[in-house]
């Protein structure tokens, strides 16, 4: 396993792999996003309490999953980049961050729009909402750190420290609704007793989840290719100056 991953630390091999995946990821995104939205908006039933407003969930919940998933992936990349000095790992985190930040922003905005009709407020400072806002700032901070160094290896190191320290926030977000009383309801899908959502609502939600994952993969491939090529360009420029 480890040996296989080391193989793809070679940027050329990594580029070849992601280029092969790209059309499949893009096609899957179109199909799943179309199917998911159709199921979510037209096929899935109303909720017994929330009526049609529950449909916001199909956009909100997968965005929140992705915001935490992408951050976790960035934290793993940062650790790998730090320990084994694989430049592809550093660049993966850099490429993923703005996409993760967008998912976090989407989760915050749709959550707020959902909160107003259901709870009666756009925002409260409970543990779940606050820890999600902190996650958004962590993404912004990570992106700012990358931009504030000219030396890319120094930037990678500083960004890795930030993202690893901030990783503490991920379990806090997940368990905030269990550890403290919050306005936000407890977990509905990933619980010890299994999902608490009726299958007619759960299925579209899971389709949307996979659709978001393919959307992330598609955009990530474009961005990580650009980052690797950008890094090569910098090296060529430095070499040209030295000659």
């Amino acid at each position, binding site marked *: 396993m480890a040996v296989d991953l080391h193989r793809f630390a070679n940027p050329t091999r990594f580029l070849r792999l992601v280029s092969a995946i790209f059309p499949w990821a893009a096609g899957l995104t179109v199909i799943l996003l179309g199917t998911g939205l159709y199921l979510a908006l037209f096929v899935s039933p*109303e909720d*017994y309490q929330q009526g049609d407003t529950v449909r916001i*969930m199909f956009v909100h919940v997968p965005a929140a999953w992705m915001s935490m998933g992408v951050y976790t992936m960035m934290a793993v990349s940062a650790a790998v980049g730090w320990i084994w000095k694989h430049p592809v790992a550093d660049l993966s985190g850099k490429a993923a961050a703005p996409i993760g930040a967008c998912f976090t922003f989407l989760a915050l905005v749709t959550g707020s729009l959902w909160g107003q*009709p259901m709870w*009666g407020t756009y925002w409260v400072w409970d543990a779940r909402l606050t820890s999600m806002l902190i996650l958004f700032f962590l993404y912004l901070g990570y992106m700012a750190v990358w931009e504030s160094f000219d030396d890319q290896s120094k930037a990678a190191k500083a960004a890795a420290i930030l993202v*690893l320290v901030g990783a503490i926030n991920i379990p806090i977000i997940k368990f905030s609704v269990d550890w403290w009383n919050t306005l936000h*309801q407890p*977990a509905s899908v990933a619980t010890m007793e299994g999902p608490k959502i009726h299958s007619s609502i759960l299925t579209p939600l899971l389709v949307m989840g996979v659709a978001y994952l393919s959307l992330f993969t598609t955009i990530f491939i474009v961005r990580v290719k650009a980052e690797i090529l950008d890094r090569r360009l910098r090296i060529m420029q430095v070499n040209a100056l030295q000659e």
Partner: protein
Amino acid sequence: MTRKRRRLYFVLAGMSVLGLAAALVLMSFEDSLVFFRSPSDLAENPIPAGRTFRLGGLVAEGSVVKDGVEIRFVVTDLAETVPVRFRGLVPDLFREGQGVVTEGRMDENGVFIASNVLAKHDENYMPPEVAESLKEAGHWQDGKEAEASD
């Protein structure tokens, strides 16, 4: 020890120390991170009249009385109860048996004067027909009691 190995241990040790520190901080903050207090919390540690805080629980069955713009109800956690008075609009989800979080203060008579009422919904999602058949089959209270007990 190779440099890779040393960096690996450094990251692992760093993350463990950070995790421990975060856990200690969160444990010491536990009381101040409370978003709302339940009627049982209030029975144990009464809050002096006039101080603003949030009270949360279920709206007791049969307790809602509408009197013009004023609405009176009782918040319960199935152990203790607190009477609440509120002037204003309640959210759509507000109803008997529903979770609520109210913000306000106690008056001298032990009545909670709410300035704001928010509705809480639970983690269950289902179509109305399924909710109906659950009620008919008598399994309805299972979820509600679980929610009220935490």
